[in-house]
Protein backbone atom coordinates (compact mmCIF):
# COMPACT_ATOMS: atom_id res chain seq x y z
CA UNK A 1 0.00 0.00 0.00
CA UNK A 2 1.81 3.11 -1.15
CA UNK A 3 1.29 6.02 1.15
CA UNK A 4 -1.40 8.31 -0.07
CA UNK A 5 -2.51 5.71 -2.57
CA UNK A 6 -5.94 5.61 -1.11
CA UNK A 7 -6.20 9.18 -2.29
CA UNK A 8 -8.44 10.56 0.36
CA UNK A 9 -7.18 11.77 3.70
CA UNK A 10 -9.34 10.70 6.60
CA UNK A 11 -11.41 13.25 8.41
CA UNK A 12 -12.48 12.30 11.90
CA UNK A 13 -15.62 13.66 13.40
CA UNK A 14 -16.11 14.66 16.99
CA UNK A 15 -19.10 12.43 17.71
CA UNK A 16 -17.33 9.53 16.02
CA UNK A 17 -14.32 9.90 18.26
CA UNK A 18 -16.45 10.30 21.38
CA UNK A 19 -18.36 7.13 20.56
CA UNK A 20 -15.10 5.31 19.86
CA UNK A 21 -13.69 6.26 23.26
CA UNK A 22 -16.84 5.32 25.14
CA UNK A 23 -17.06 2.02 23.31
CA UNK A 24 -13.39 1.34 24.00
CA UNK A 25 -13.75 1.98 27.73
CA UNK A 26 -16.88 -0.12 28.06
CA UNK A 27 -15.47 -2.98 26.01
CA UNK A 28 -12.22 -3.04 27.98
CA UNK A 29 -14.11 -2.88 31.25
CA UNK A 30 -16.49 -5.63 30.23
CA UNK A 31 -13.52 -7.87 29.78
CA UNK A 32 -11.48 -7.12 32.84
CA UNK A 33 -14.22 -5.92 35.16
CA UNK A 34 -11.50 -4.50 37.39
CA UNK A 35 -12.87 -1.03 37.70
CA UNK A 36 -16.48 -1.96 38.26
CA UNK A 37 -15.78 -4.70 40.76
CA UNK A 38 -13.52 -2.38 42.71
CA UNK A 39 -16.14 0.34 42.74
CA UNK A 40 -18.94 -1.99 43.67
CA UNK A 41 -17.13 -3.75 46.45
CA UNK A 42 -15.96 -0.45 47.81
CA UNK A 43 -19.45 1.04 47.69
CA UNK A 44 -20.94 -1.90 49.53
CA UNK A 45 -18.19 -1.76 52.14
CA UNK A 46 -18.87 1.91 52.70
CA UNK A 47 -22.52 1.18 53.29
CA UNK A 48 -21.53 -1.55 55.68
CA UNK A 49 -19.27 0.79 57.59
CA UNK A 50 -22.01 3.37 57.82
CA UNK A 51 -24.23 0.71 59.29
CA UNK A 52 -21.90 0.27 62.22
CA UNK A 53 -20.69 3.84 62.42
CA UNK A 54 -24.17 5.25 62.70
CA UNK A 55 -26.34 3.20 64.96
CA UNK A 56 -29.65 4.12 63.46
CA UNK A 57 -33.17 3.23 64.37
CA UNK A 58 -35.54 2.82 61.40
CA UNK A 59 -36.86 6.37 61.66
CA UNK A 60 -33.45 8.03 61.67
CA UNK A 61 -32.33 5.69 58.97
CA UNK A 62 -34.88 7.16 56.57
CA UNK A 63 -33.56 10.61 57.20
CA UNK A 64 -29.94 9.57 56.88
CA UNK A 65 -30.40 7.53 53.70
CA UNK A 66 -29.78 10.24 51.09
CA UNK A 67 -26.62 11.30 52.91
CA UNK A 68 -25.30 7.78 53.19
CA UNK A 69 -26.04 7.10 49.55
CA UNK A 70 -24.29 10.20 48.31
CA UNK A 71 -21.29 9.72 50.55
CA UNK A 72 -21.00 6.24 49.08
CA UNK A 73 -21.32 7.48 45.51
CA UNK A 74 -18.80 10.23 46.09
CA UNK A 75 -16.16 7.85 47.44
CA UNK A 76 -16.74 5.08 44.94
CA UNK A 77 -16.80 7.72 42.24
CA UNK A 78 -13.24 8.85 42.92
CA UNK A 79 -12.10 5.29 42.62
CA UNK A 80 -13.63 5.01 39.17
CA UNK A 81 -12.31 8.38 38.01
CA UNK A 82 -8.80 7.53 39.13
CA UNK A 83 -8.74 4.12 37.47
CA UNK A 84 -10.26 5.36 34.26
CA UNK A 85 -7.54 7.95 33.76
CA UNK A 86 -4.73 5.78 35.08
CA UNK A 87 -5.35 3.33 32.25
CA UNK A 88 -4.66 6.05 29.73
CA UNK A 89 -1.63 7.37 31.50
CA UNK A 90 0.18 4.14 32.26
CA UNK A 91 0.60 2.76 28.80
CA UNK A 92 1.01 6.11 27.21
CA UNK A 93 -2.44 5.82 25.71
CA UNK A 94 -3.21 9.42 26.48
CA UNK A 95 -0.61 10.29 23.87
CA UNK A 96 -2.35 7.90 21.52
CA UNK A 97 -5.57 9.82 22.01
CA UNK A 98 -3.82 13.15 21.61
CA UNK A 99 -2.23 12.03 18.36
CA UNK A 100 -5.60 11.48 16.76
CA UNK A 101 -6.58 14.31 14.42
CA UNK A 102 -9.60 15.22 16.44
CA UNK A 103 -10.54 18.02 18.79
CA UNK A 104 -9.42 17.48 22.38
CA UNK A 105 -12.93 17.90 23.65
CA UNK A 106 -13.66 14.51 22.13
CA UNK A 107 -11.35 13.02 24.72
CA UNK A 108 -13.08 14.96 27.47
CA UNK A 109 -16.59 13.99 26.44
CA UNK A 110 -15.61 10.42 25.69
CA UNK A 111 -14.04 9.91 29.11
CA UNK A 112 -16.81 11.82 30.83
CA UNK A 113 -19.50 9.68 29.31
CA UNK A 114 -17.75 6.42 30.11
CA UNK A 115 -17.06 7.62 33.66
CA UNK A 116 -20.73 8.49 33.94
CA UNK A 117 -21.68 5.06 32.66
CA UNK A 118 -19.54 3.34 35.28
CA UNK A 119 -20.92 5.51 38.04
CA UNK A 120 -24.49 4.84 36.96
CA UNK A 121 -23.85 1.11 36.83
CA UNK A 122 -22.60 1.20 40.39
CA UNK A 123 -25.59 3.26 41.48
CA UNK A 124 -27.98 0.89 39.76
CA UNK A 125 -26.57 -1.95 41.82
CA UNK A 126 -26.28 -0.08 45.10
CA UNK A 127 -29.86 1.20 45.15
CA UNK A 128 -31.63 -2.16 45.23
CA UNK A 129 -29.08 -3.58 47.64
CA UNK A 130 -29.59 -0.67 49.99
CA UNK A 131 -33.36 -0.97 49.62
CA UNK A 132 -33.23 -4.56 50.67
CA UNK A 133 -30.73 -4.15 53.49
CA UNK A 134 -32.58 -1.28 55.08
CA UNK A 135 -36.11 -2.01 54.03
CA UNK A 136 -36.57 1.38 52.41
CA UNK A 137 -38.18 1.70 49.03
CA UNK A 138 -35.79 3.62 46.81
CA UNK A 139 -37.59 3.02 43.53
CA UNK A 140 -38.72 6.56 43.26
CA UNK A 141 -38.58 8.20 39.82
CA UNK A 142 -37.72 11.58 41.32
CA UNK A 143 -34.89 10.06 43.28
CA UNK A 144 -33.50 8.39 40.20
CA UNK A 145 -33.54 11.63 38.25
CA UNK A 146 -31.72 13.41 41.05
CA UNK A 147 -29.08 10.71 41.15
CA UNK A 148 -28.64 11.03 37.41
CA UNK A 149 -28.28 14.81 37.53
CA UNK A 150 -25.91 14.68 40.46
CA UNK A 151 -23.75 12.04 38.81
CA UNK A 152 -23.47 14.11 35.66
CA UNK A 153 -22.15 17.12 37.57
CA UNK A 154 -19.80 14.97 39.62
CA UNK A 155 -18.35 13.33 36.57
CA UNK A 156 -18.12 16.60 34.62
CA UNK A 157 -15.75 18.10 37.16
CA UNK A 158 -14.24 14.77 38.13
CA UNK A 159 -13.06 13.94 34.63
CA UNK A 160 -11.30 17.27 34.33
CA UNK A 161 -9.66 17.04 37.74
CA UNK A 162 -8.66 13.40 37.34
CA UNK A 163 -6.94 14.33 34.07
CA UNK A 164 -4.91 16.77 36.10
CA UNK A 165 -4.34 14.52 39.09
CA UNK A 166 -3.07 11.63 36.98
CA UNK A 167 -0.27 13.82 35.67
CA UNK A 168 1.05 14.71 39.10
CA UNK A 169 3.29 12.78 41.44
CA UNK A 170 0.65 12.44 44.12
CA UNK A 171 -1.92 11.02 41.71
CA UNK A 172 -4.62 8.96 43.40
CA UNK A 173 -4.41 10.76 46.70
CA UNK A 174 -4.81 14.13 45.09
CA UNK A 175 -8.09 13.60 43.29
CA UNK A 176 -10.43 13.51 46.31
CA UNK A 177 -8.61 16.50 47.80
CA UNK A 178 -9.17 18.50 44.64
CA UNK A 179 -12.63 17.19 43.89
CA UNK A 180 -14.59 17.18 47.11
CA UNK A 181 -14.49 20.87 48.04
CA UNK A 182 -15.57 21.76 44.56
CA UNK A 183 -18.36 19.23 44.27
CA UNK A 184 -20.12 20.21 47.50
CA UNK A 185 -23.03 22.01 45.77
CA UNK A 186 -23.94 18.73 44.11
CA UNK A 187 -23.87 16.87 47.38
CA UNK A 188 -25.98 19.49 49.10
CA UNK A 189 -28.57 19.74 46.37
CA UNK A 190 -28.70 16.02 45.66
CA UNK A 191 -29.07 15.02 49.29
CA UNK A 192 -31.76 17.61 49.89
CA UNK A 193 -33.63 16.69 46.74
CA UNK A 194 -33.44 12.94 47.39
CA UNK A 195 -34.61 13.56 50.90
CA UNK A 196 -37.49 15.60 49.58
CA UNK A 197 -38.59 12.84 47.23
CA UNK A 198 -38.32 10.19 49.90
CA UNK A 199 -40.41 12.19 52.28
CA UNK A 200 -42.96 12.85 49.56
CA UNK A 201 -42.62 16.61 49.67
CA UNK A 202 -44.30 18.85 47.12
CA UNK A 203 -42.39 19.23 43.87
CA UNK A 204 -42.31 23.01 44.30
CA UNK A 205 -40.28 22.57 47.45
CA UNK A 206 -37.79 20.29 45.78
CA UNK A 207 -37.42 22.24 42.54
CA UNK A 208 -34.87 24.79 43.83
CA UNK A 209 -32.46 21.94 44.49
CA UNK A 210 -33.07 20.32 41.15
CA UNK A 211 -32.54 23.67 39.46
CA UNK A 212 -29.30 24.02 41.33
CA UNK A 213 -28.17 20.64 40.05
CA UNK A 214 -29.05 21.51 36.49
CA UNK A 215 -27.29 24.87 36.71
CA UNK A 216 -24.20 23.25 38.17
CA UNK A 217 -24.17 20.54 35.52
CA UNK A 218 -24.44 23.02 32.69
CA UNK A 219 -21.90 25.47 34.04
CA UNK A 220 -19.27 22.91 34.88
CA UNK A 221 -19.61 20.81 31.78
CA UNK A 222 -19.12 24.01 29.78
CA UNK A 223 -16.19 25.20 31.87
CA UNK A 224 -14.49 21.80 31.90
CA UNK A 225 -14.89 21.49 28.14
CA UNK A 226 -13.35 24.92 27.67
CA UNK A 227 -10.29 24.40 29.86
CA UNK A 228 -9.64 20.75 29.03
CA UNK A 229 -7.09 21.70 26.38
CA UNK A 230 -4.93 23.42 28.96
CA UNK A 231 -4.89 20.27 31.02
CA UNK A 232 -3.81 17.81 28.35
CA UNK A 233 -1.74 19.84 25.95
CA UNK A 234 1.82 20.75 26.63
Amino acid at each position, binding site marked *: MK*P*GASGYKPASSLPGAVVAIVWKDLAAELRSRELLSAMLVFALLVILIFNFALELDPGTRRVATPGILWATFAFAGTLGLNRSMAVEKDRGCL*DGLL*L*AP*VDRSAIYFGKMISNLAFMLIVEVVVLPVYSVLYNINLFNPGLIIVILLGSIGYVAVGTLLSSMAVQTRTRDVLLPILLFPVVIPILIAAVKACSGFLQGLELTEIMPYINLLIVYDVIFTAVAYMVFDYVVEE
Partner: protein
Amino acid sequence: MIAVKKLVKRFGLKIVLRGLDFNVQEGEFVALLGPNGAGKTTFLRILSSLSRPTLGEVRVSGFRLPDQAAAVRRNLGVVSHLPLLYGDLTAEENLHFYARMYGLGNRQQRIDDTLDLVGLSSRRRDLVRIFSRGMQQRLAIGRAILHDPDVLLFDEPHTGLDQDACDMLDGLLRKVAAQGRTVVMTSHDLARVEDLASRFDVLSRGVITASLNRGELGEGNLLTFYRQALAG
Protein backbone atom coordinates in the same frame (compact mmCIF):
# COMPACT_ATOMS: atom_id res chain seq x y z
CA MET B 1 8.52 16.92 4.32
CA ILE B 2 9.86 18.12 7.65
CA ALA B 3 11.24 21.63 7.95
CA VAL B 4 12.43 22.92 11.30
CA LYS B 5 13.97 26.34 11.67
CA LYS B 6 15.58 27.71 14.83
CA LEU B 7 13.47 25.59 17.17
CA VAL B 8 13.70 26.54 20.82
CA LYS B 9 12.01 24.55 23.58
CA ARG B 10 11.96 25.66 27.17
CA PHE B 11 10.54 23.91 30.20
CA GLY B 12 10.11 26.73 32.67
CA LEU B 13 13.62 28.10 32.85
CA LYS B 14 15.37 25.05 31.46
CA ILE B 15 16.24 25.28 27.77
CA VAL B 16 16.29 21.89 26.07
CA LEU B 17 16.41 22.77 22.39
CA ARG B 18 18.42 25.77 21.37
CA GLY B 19 17.66 27.01 17.91
CA LEU B 20 17.60 23.65 16.21
CA ASP B 21 17.51 23.36 12.40
CA PHE B 22 16.37 20.16 10.76
CA ASN B 23 15.23 19.30 7.25
CA VAL B 24 14.03 15.99 5.88
CA GLN B 25 13.10 15.29 2.28
CA GLU B 26 10.37 12.94 1.24
CA GLY B 27 11.43 9.32 1.43
CA GLU B 28 14.46 9.84 3.62
CA PHE B 29 15.09 7.60 6.61
CA VAL B 30 16.88 9.73 9.19
CA ALA B 31 18.46 8.23 12.28
CA LEU B 32 18.58 10.79 15.04
CA LEU B 33 21.41 9.97 17.42
CA GLY B 34 22.55 11.57 20.61
CA PRO B 35 23.23 11.01 24.29
CA ASN B 36 20.51 10.80 26.90
CA GLY B 37 19.11 14.14 27.86
CA ALA B 38 20.14 15.71 24.57
CA GLY B 39 16.55 16.46 23.74
CA LYS B 40 15.73 13.73 21.23
CA THR B 41 12.47 12.72 22.83
CA THR B 42 11.47 16.33 23.37
CA PHE B 43 12.19 17.04 19.73
CA LEU B 44 10.18 14.09 18.56
CA ARG B 45 7.28 15.08 20.78
CA ILE B 46 7.26 18.51 19.20
CA LEU B 47 7.34 17.01 15.70
CA SER B 48 4.45 14.73 16.62
CA SER B 49 2.43 17.73 17.86
CA LEU B 50 2.33 16.47 21.44
CA SER B 51 4.38 19.38 22.67
CA ARG B 52 4.43 23.00 21.59
CA PRO B 53 7.54 24.77 20.40
CA THR B 54 8.53 27.75 22.52
CA LEU B 55 10.06 29.59 19.57
CA GLY B 56 10.90 28.85 15.99
CA GLU B 57 9.18 27.33 13.02
CA VAL B 58 8.16 23.72 12.61
CA ARG B 59 6.53 22.38 9.49
CA VAL B 60 5.50 18.79 8.84
CA SER B 61 4.03 17.76 5.50
CA GLY B 62 3.77 21.43 4.70
CA PHE B 63 1.58 22.20 7.69
CA ARG B 64 2.72 24.43 10.51
CA LEU B 65 2.81 23.39 14.13
CA PRO B 66 1.10 24.10 16.46
CA ASP B 67 -1.56 25.99 14.47
CA GLN B 68 -2.31 23.28 11.97
CA ALA B 69 -1.72 20.39 14.31
CA ALA B 70 -4.80 18.42 13.26
CA ALA B 71 -3.69 18.40 9.65
CA VAL B 72 -0.25 17.25 10.69
CA ARG B 73 -1.67 14.45 12.82
CA ARG B 74 -3.66 13.02 9.96
CA ASN B 75 -0.46 12.39 8.11
CA LEU B 76 1.70 11.23 10.97
CA GLY B 77 2.38 7.87 12.58
CA VAL B 78 4.19 7.64 15.89
CA VAL B 79 5.80 4.73 17.72
CA SER B 80 7.35 5.43 21.09
CA HIS B 81 8.81 3.07 23.65
CA LEU B 82 5.42 2.93 25.37
CA PRO B 83 3.04 0.74 23.39
CA LEU B 84 0.05 3.12 23.26
CA LEU B 85 -2.16 0.06 23.24
CA TYR B 86 -4.99 -1.04 25.49
CA GLY B 87 -4.11 -4.23 27.30
CA ASP B 88 -7.69 -5.30 27.87
CA LEU B 89 -8.60 -5.18 24.21
CA THR B 90 -7.59 -7.62 21.50
CA ALA B 91 -5.16 -6.67 18.77
CA GLU B 92 -8.01 -6.30 16.35
CA GLU B 93 -10.07 -4.21 18.75
CA ASN B 94 -7.16 -1.89 19.35
CA LEU B 95 -6.86 -1.29 15.62
CA HIS B 96 -10.60 -0.84 15.34
CA PHE B 97 -10.46 1.83 17.99
CA TYR B 98 -7.70 3.76 16.32
CA ALA B 99 -9.35 3.36 12.95
CA ARG B 100 -12.40 5.07 14.35
CA MET B 101 -10.39 7.75 16.09
CA TYR B 102 -8.79 8.57 12.75
CA GLY B 103 -12.13 8.47 10.99
CA LEU B 104 -11.01 5.83 8.50
CA GLY B 105 -13.28 4.29 5.95
CA ASN B 106 -13.03 0.71 4.81
CA ARG B 107 -11.92 -0.25 8.29
CA GLN B 108 -11.98 -4.00 8.21
CA GLN B 109 -9.89 -4.20 5.07
CA ARG B 110 -7.28 -1.85 6.41
CA ILE B 111 -7.10 -3.73 9.67
CA ASP B 112 -6.70 -7.06 7.93
CA ASP B 113 -3.96 -5.67 5.69
CA THR B 114 -2.15 -4.10 8.59
CA LEU B 115 -2.27 -7.23 10.71
CA ASP B 116 -0.85 -9.14 7.75
CA LEU B 117 1.93 -6.66 7.27
CA VAL B 118 3.08 -6.85 10.88
CA GLY B 119 2.65 -10.58 11.01
CA LEU B 120 0.00 -10.70 13.72
CA SER B 121 -3.00 -12.00 11.81
CA SER B 122 -3.00 -15.24 13.75
CA ARG B 123 -3.05 -13.39 17.05
CA ARG B 124 -5.72 -10.88 16.17
CA ARG B 125 -8.17 -12.09 18.77
CA ASP B 126 -5.68 -12.25 21.60
CA LEU B 127 -5.61 -9.66 24.34
CA VAL B 128 -2.70 -7.27 24.01
CA ARG B 129 -2.07 -7.78 27.68
CA ILE B 130 -0.59 -11.22 26.96
CA PHE B 131 1.54 -10.16 24.01
CA SER B 132 5.28 -10.18 24.37
CA ARG B 133 7.00 -6.85 24.15
CA GLY B 134 8.13 -7.62 20.62
CA MET B 135 4.61 -8.37 19.51
CA GLN B 136 3.33 -5.23 21.16
CA GLN B 137 5.87 -3.17 19.27
CA ARG B 138 4.83 -4.76 16.01
CA LEU B 139 1.21 -4.01 16.73
CA ALA B 140 2.22 -0.49 17.69
CA ILE B 141 3.77 -0.09 14.26
CA GLY B 142 0.56 -1.43 12.79
CA ARG B 143 -1.36 1.21 14.70
CA ALA B 144 1.03 3.85 13.43
CA ILE B 145 0.56 3.02 9.76
CA LEU B 146 -3.12 2.21 9.89
CA HIS B 147 -4.13 5.56 8.51
CA ASP B 148 -1.48 5.46 5.83
CA PRO B 149 0.66 8.38 6.95
CA ASP B 150 3.47 9.82 4.88
CA VAL B 151 5.61 10.59 7.91
CA LEU B 152 6.67 8.15 10.62
CA LEU B 153 8.37 9.00 13.88
CA PHE B 154 9.99 6.27 15.97
CA ASP B 155 11.32 6.99 19.42
CA GLU B 156 13.81 4.26 20.35
CA PRO B 157 11.57 1.43 19.16
CA HIS B 158 14.11 -1.28 19.99
CA THR B 159 13.92 -0.59 23.72
CA GLY B 160 13.27 -3.72 25.72
CA LEU B 161 13.41 -6.13 22.79
CA ASP B 162 15.60 -9.20 22.52
CA GLN B 163 17.73 -9.95 19.45
CA ASP B 164 15.09 -11.90 17.58
CA ALA B 165 12.44 -9.33 18.22
CA CYS B 166 14.83 -6.61 17.12
CA ASP B 167 15.57 -8.42 13.89
CA MET B 168 11.89 -8.85 13.23
CA LEU B 169 11.32 -5.21 13.98
CA ASP B 170 14.06 -4.18 11.59
CA GLY B 171 12.51 -6.27 8.86
CA LEU B 172 9.23 -4.51 9.45
CA LEU B 173 10.89 -1.10 9.53
CA ARG B 174 12.52 -1.76 6.18
CA LYS B 175 9.23 -2.91 4.68
CA VAL B 176 7.43 0.11 5.93
CA ALA B 177 10.10 2.56 4.89
CA ALA B 178 10.38 0.97 1.47
CA GLN B 179 6.86 2.10 0.78
CA GLY B 180 8.18 5.59 0.30
CA ARG B 181 7.42 6.99 3.69
CA THR B 182 9.56 9.56 5.42
CA VAL B 183 11.00 8.23 8.65
CA VAL B 184 12.75 9.81 11.62
CA MET B 185 14.01 7.39 14.21
CA THR B 186 15.90 8.01 17.41
CA SER B 187 18.09 5.24 18.66
CA HIS B 188 20.99 4.26 20.84
CA ASP B 189 21.76 1.15 18.84
CA LEU B 190 24.32 2.36 16.30
CA ALA B 191 24.86 -1.04 14.72
CA ARG B 192 21.22 -1.53 13.87
CA VAL B 193 20.69 1.98 12.73
CA GLU B 194 23.64 1.78 10.36
CA ASP B 195 21.79 -0.80 8.29
CA LEU B 196 18.44 0.90 8.31
CA ALA B 197 18.88 4.60 7.81
CA SER B 198 19.76 6.65 4.77
CA ARG B 199 20.99 9.55 6.82
CA PHE B 200 22.49 10.09 10.28
CA ASP B 201 22.03 13.20 12.35
CA VAL B 202 23.46 13.86 15.80
CA LEU B 203 21.58 15.92 18.34
CA SER B 204 23.76 17.18 21.14
CA ARG B 205 23.18 19.89 23.70
CA GLY B 206 20.01 21.07 22.05
CA VAL B 207 21.14 21.42 18.44
CA ILE B 208 22.02 19.20 15.48
CA THR B 209 25.79 19.13 15.50
CA ALA B 210 26.35 16.85 12.52
CA SER B 211 24.54 15.28 9.62
CA LEU B 212 25.79 12.69 7.18
CA ASN B 213 24.28 10.70 4.36
CA ARG B 214 24.83 7.00 4.23
CA GLY B 215 26.84 7.25 1.03
CA GLU B 216 29.34 9.57 2.63
CA LEU B 217 29.78 7.39 5.68
CA GLY B 218 31.62 4.37 4.44
CA GLU B 219 31.74 1.07 6.27
CA GLY B 220 31.67 0.87 10.05
CA ASN B 221 32.53 4.48 10.59
CA LEU B 222 29.33 5.43 12.26
CA LEU B 223 30.78 5.19 15.73
CA THR B 224 33.67 7.45 14.82
CA PHE B 225 31.34 9.93 13.23
CA TYR B 226 29.12 9.87 16.27
CA ARG B 227 31.96 10.41 18.72
CA GLN B 228 33.33 13.24 16.66
CA ALA B 229 29.96 14.90 16.45
CA LEU B 230 29.60 14.81 20.21
CA ALA B 231 33.07 16.11 20.87
CA GLY B 232 32.91 18.93 18.34
